[in-house]
């Protein structure tokens, strides 16, 4: 029996030398994070990163790595549905074509991805807002991290509420399957209240521009934009005055400078999606995919080598917008590329108008790829603050002030010696409104955060989507109509307007989401 005891002792000592707790080591788990100031910084940086980079898609093999939230996703979802774009001649992606041709439905994979990215930003911001206050450290620093996270959460909800209207309102993070995964929708008023609260909290951030970080001015600029969207004209004027009072912002004398990667964070910049020229191609880090997307269709000829054989699936600028650009407008030559030249043969190829705004070769002539230019994508800039103010004053019938500010703005955009014509103060209110929207359309062309939402709110009543005209595109070489998808866009738009004028004011809640969350109700027109 003695030996039995020995054996039992031996056995029990060996017992429990392994633990069933997991220790991932090469990965960080949420249990052992959110402990230090640098963890807080990383939690907020992650949310910023989601604006332009698409990590989750890659990790889950969703095959959607090519279009992050503010980087290219708008261009192939709501951006392409606007009159800024028609798809390239051989766009093979049916979801993309459906968005552009205005015949999309709730199964659209690109819209699903837009929805997913939007919620990833909101949840990541919620995680930061929830965990950071529990960290011990410099309170002022930590509070600012929370404010930045609130700014980003408000930004996420501001996009979501404009795109889908009633959506769930989540202000606590979802981290476990045991959390409520099937929230119901909240009223848009509650969502806007939360957005305004978050942006207002963020106005306590520092004023000084600090690369990508949100600032007090950025929070005010978005409060202005929220007010504009909600037609709260007095609030727009109020925020405009606050922003001007900061003394930090001005309309850039040279339109090109706004996009110059060596002139970031200058007078017109308020809040940008940030990129870095690192001379690498692709990757998850720093690719401005707008740059990759907008080459001319017949090959960008550089040093005798065709860099891109076809326009492929890339969107091209709608010719209707090209015609609004006057030769004496300094924005014209920078915004478009109308011809390309083969240096070896000196042959000039005329191409249909393409956006040149993001073309990295403008800034780095040695590049052989359209990527990694380091050109930032503005999310909101001072020109929008100014034009919003003009719009508000026009709506408030303070025409004189509106016209003065508007003409000052136009003067800045003119080429010296041949200024753009001034608007006269006797212009009728509705015509002036059209002029403001046209000016926005020109100034913010292919800056996706602007045009679609302008189309939604253009008629002011919020009863239908307004397209002025969607004409055919003519091939500049062959003289034939080339815009197969543009034709369908026009036809389908006419059709959807007749059937359901409200359709497209809101986008469909993705079918996958409706199936996964039975508490959601589809938006009108998409049932």
């Amino acid at each position, binding site marked *: *029996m003695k*030996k*039995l005891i020995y*054996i039992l002792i*031996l*056995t029990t000592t*060996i*017992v429990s*030398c*392994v633990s*069933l*707790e*997991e*220790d*991932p*080591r*090469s*990965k*960080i*788990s*949420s*249990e052992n*994070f959110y402990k230090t100031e640098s*963890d807080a910084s*990383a*939690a*907020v940086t*992650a*949310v*910023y*990163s*989601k604006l*332009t*980079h698409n990590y*989750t898609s890659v990790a889950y093999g969703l*095959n959607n790595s090519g279009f992050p939230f503010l980087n290219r996703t708008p261009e192939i979802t709501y951006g392409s549905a606007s009159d800024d774009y028609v798809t390239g001649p051989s766009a093979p992606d049916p979801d993309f074509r459906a968005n552009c041709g205005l015949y999309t439905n709730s199964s659209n994979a690109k819209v699903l991805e837009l*929805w*997913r990215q939007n*919620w*990833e930003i909101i*949840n*990541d911001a919620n*995680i930061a807002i929830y965990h950071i206050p529990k960290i011990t450290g410099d309170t002022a620093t930590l509070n600012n991290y929370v404010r930045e996270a609130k700014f980003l959460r408000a930004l996420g909800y501001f996009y979501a509420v404009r795109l889908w209207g009633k959506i769930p309102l989540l202000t606590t993070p*979802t*981290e*476990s*399957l*045991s959390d409520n*995964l*099937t929230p119901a929708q909240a009223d848009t008023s509650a969502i806007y209240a939360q957005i305004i609260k978050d942006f207002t909290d963020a106005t306590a951030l520092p004023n000084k521009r600090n*690369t*990508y970080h949100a600032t007090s001015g950025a929070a005010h600029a978005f409060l202005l934009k929220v007010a504009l969207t909600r037609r709260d004209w007095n609030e727009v004027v109020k925020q405009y005055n606050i922003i001007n009072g900061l003394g930090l912002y001005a309309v850039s004398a040279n339109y090109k400078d706004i996009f110059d990667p060596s002139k*970031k964070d200058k007078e017109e910049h308020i809040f940008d999606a940030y990129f*870095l020229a690192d001379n690498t191609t692709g990757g*998850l*880090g*720093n690719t401005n995919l707008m740059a990759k997307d907008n080459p001319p269709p017949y090959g960008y000829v550089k040093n005798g080598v065709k860099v891109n054989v076809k326009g492929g699936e890339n969107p091209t600028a709608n010719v209707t917008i090209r015609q609004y650009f006057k030769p004496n407008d300094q924005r014209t030559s920078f915004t478009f590329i109308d011809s390309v030249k083969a240096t070896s043969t000196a042959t000039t190829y005329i191409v249909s108008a393409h956006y040149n705004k993001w073309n990295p070769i403008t800034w780095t002539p040695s590049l052989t790829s359209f990527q990694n230019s380091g050109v930032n994508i503005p999310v909101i800039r001072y020109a929008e603050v100014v034009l919003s103010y003009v719009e508000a004053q026009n709506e408030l019938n303070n025409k004189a002030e509106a016209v003065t500010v508007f003409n000052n703005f136009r003067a800045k955009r003119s080429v010296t010696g041949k200024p753009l014509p001034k608007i006269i103060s006797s212009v009728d209110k509705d015509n002036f409104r059209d002029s403001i929207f046209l000016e926005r359309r020109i100034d913010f062309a292919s800056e996706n955060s602007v045009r679609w939402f302008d189309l939604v709110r253009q008629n002011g009543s919020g009863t239908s989507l307004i397209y002025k005209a969607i004409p055919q595109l003519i091939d500049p070489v062959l003289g034939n109509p080339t815009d197969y998808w543009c034709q369908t866009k026009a036809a389908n738009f006419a059709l959807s307007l007749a059937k359901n004028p409200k359709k497209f004011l809101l986008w469909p809640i993705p079918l*996958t*989401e409706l199936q*996964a969350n039975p508490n959601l109700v589809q938006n009108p027109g998409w049932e």
Partner: protein
Amino acid sequence: MTKLVLFLGSQKRFPQFLFRKFGITFLFGILSISSVLAQQLEIKGNVLEEESKIAIIGATIRIKGQKTGTVSNAQGNFQLKIKSFPATLIVSSVGFRSQELEFYEATEPITVYLTDDQNRLSSLVVVGYGTQKRSDLTGSVASVQVSQLKDAAPTSFVDALQGLVSGVQVTSTSGAPGATSIVRIRGGNSITGGNDPLYVIDGFPIYNDNKAGDAGSATATVGTASGLNPLSSINPGDIESIDILKDASATAIYGSRGANGVVIITTKKGKAGKSIVSYDGSFGTQTLSHKIDLLNAQQWATYYNDAQGKAVFTQDQINSYATNSTDWQNAAFRTAATQNHQITFSGGNEKTQFSSSLGYLGQDGIVINTDFKRYTGRISVNSKLSTNFNVGLNLNESYSTSNAATTGNITAILYMPPVIPVYDANGVYTLYNNYNTSGSGNPIAYLNTVTNQSNLQRTLGSAFGEYEIIKGLKAKVLIGADLLTNRQYSYIPKPLYESISSGGSASLRDKFTTNWLNENTLSYSTTINKLHNIDLLGGFTQQKSETTGNVSNSTGFANDATEYYDLASASTPTVASSYSGWTLESFLGRLNYNYDHKYFLSASFRADGSSRLGANNKWGYFPSASFGWQLDKEAFFKNIANSIKLSNSKLRLSYGRTGNSEIDPYQSLSLLSSNLYPNGSTSTNTGFSPISIKNENLKWETTDQYDAGIDLAFFNQRIKFTADFYYKRTHDLLISKYVPYSSGFPVSLQNIGEVENKGFELALNTENIKGKFNWTTNATFSVNRNKVLSLGGVDQIIIGGSTQVGNIIMVGKPLGAFYGLKTDGLYTAANLPTDLSTTILASGTAVGDIKYKDLNGDGKITTAADQTIIGNAQPKFIFGLTNTFNYQNFDLSVFVQGSYGNQIYSYILRQLQTPNGFNNSIVGFADHYTATNTTAQYERANTAINNSTNSDLYVYDGSYVRLKTVTLGYTLPKNILTKIKASNIRLYVSGQNLLTVSKYLGFDPDVNSYSQDASRQGVDLGSYPTAKSITGGVNITF
């Protein structure tokens, strides 16, 4: 004498191998006493193993009808008193066939030869944490005849299991040396979890994860080079026995790892007696078993002209190709040599036995510059330290090294147009296929100049101590370790096409896996009233595995001088490292009870705690129960049994629950991943955000299995038949499921879905002719039907990815179903639609293009609406048939094996049927549609139509019958052996894969390119082809 009788009786309830090894000394003690008492008539004799003529120690010799008996001593000698003549002596020993000898008078000392009881009906079967007499089994356990492994000289024992065991499906993933097959026991239960059985090697449970033998991927390689299968590190020559546990009553003792069946491997152990030295050696050659018929240069040039729509090749050029065609397969495949050597040294005395071996396997691959070499060393020692304390040690050491071809190499061999020579006019390699717009490099240049080596070192060792506390009660402690080190090197030189953009590409990858095991068991065995036989087992085990890895890649070298030895000198080095680990804690218990060996009851229970599962469900509980009824022992049945010459009849019934948790670690946690954001214009900040949602409830995949079996034997065991019917239902499948995106996450691994497997398996062993000429037949036949019952709310999961290969998981269909369009010949002028936008080929569709079927009748052909199930990788049945013949000193065995009713989705043949002429094509493409050949079988050649749709055109009948092994052996006669003082010498010649009957046009119908991925079965990506081989060898024993 009573003591001896009692001991013999207890043989049935003692774990038999322990008895054999450790009970001997005790027996001799008793015997010596009893022999003094011997005063009556006596028979003296010697018991030898027939083949090796080695003394059998501990053989039981008793008189029929009496309880009197004795056992043979260390020299195999025995003497036994006889009360009266005539007497019938029964000589038996575990693992040998019993012999009955009739005596009418006292004789000279006799010699009794016992032969291996190949069918092992009454022999011991290794089951989980112990052994059982086969006759006492209530579960479904198959034992493999290891002798069949020996001559085929396979790289891995896994390959040799094919067709030998009913209910076990073995499919080949690659014919590359060092790669091995995958095993499915009674079908696959899991969709995303593992489906491989648990391997238990000398008591050490190993889930074979091919990732452990593959340290990662290198940059700029062409496809992947399959890593070494860790199981190939086990030398088949060292294996003593393989037992396969199939039903849940047998596997439930392995709990969470038992759902896919268990393969128990026992390596050779020493036996007391004369020391034995044996040498086994063989040499062989391998050749490609089946070449794919492709276009020759003339045919291809003509085809290319048709595809281009113009005469790129002039008629003169085409004519010149008649004598100037490159056969890339001939350039890449070769006759490869193999050799295998093993020296075994074993022996021992009553106290200590040992067995050791050294082995070498050298195998050249049939693809140039590929090979596999394995060096193995093994030692096994068992020692009886005192009358009740045994210790033992097993140590297997192996080092394997392999030069591999990549998947891209094999396909490039097939794709290269025959008009391109291997070398250009200057004698240097042609660079690439310039007829393909996307280009592909010269595979011969790649194979000859690229280094792509993988080394695998494995140490698998265990030591145990076993103490008998009181009679029948034993405590055993086992500690083991499995250490795997994988190192891979590669270098792609600058001049190669694959290196043009990277400027030389080097890679160095390491992976280290350590796996520790501790098992503590208590077993008790007793008989009450000579009728109630009881075995009890209880234990606690724990296992811990950790894997660390690092991958260093580098591209952009100044020159090729340093290869992978100086990664830092390249312009862009990249590094990565990884860690993962898991632990498993278990409590187990088992009761085996039988009443007079007539009624059997077995019940087991295991509780497993796994680190890999959610905090709320770490522990899983796995019970089983089974019943057996030895019908022929019933009085009422005896007459019937005798009249139909039934010598054994047993019914078995079992139920059990097993689990599966073969998922990567950390899936229940919320893990963070890093992401970057530019900080200003020069640097980036790193952010961290969750990449996965926490699932505290993540739990086991659970399989409930029911089994009903019958064992029958007729004519004094000359015909033996076993049949088993089973039904398995697996629920809580681990599947990635969409979660509402408002959570911020796309998917999470959840327990949803159900799969069922049902089937039956038959095994038949017959001794057709017995005497001077012996003929035995072993046949196996297995049927399994697999069906997906639920996918947790969705109807189907289409398996997509970089290579669309047409797999789908659909409720109501089996795993391994293929999904695609159905075709209906070619478009003719009569049936070409006027509105071409309704065809899937869209604009440019013309007469001679493939016509797909509009299954939903909407007038359009779309992948969304017109795809359907077009095939199934699951066979209707599989079978194996072995015939063994012995005449005098000759032995011959012929093994045929096959599969029926399964289909192959041949991605490689689809690629070889691309009508653009960029690559070479199947020879059938010579008969393609043209204006002058309107009744052609194949579509028109053209570069415009991108016909890359999954369709039934690429689904092939995968049925085959294969002459898997033929072995002819000759054992030298005894008079010659005596002269050279050897106890046995056998010469043999053996052929493998000599003949395969199949309709499949690819390399081999036995193919499963996606290896362990259950959702992509039956796909042929153009893997390294299997070889046929001829081997000649010798077995010598001194």
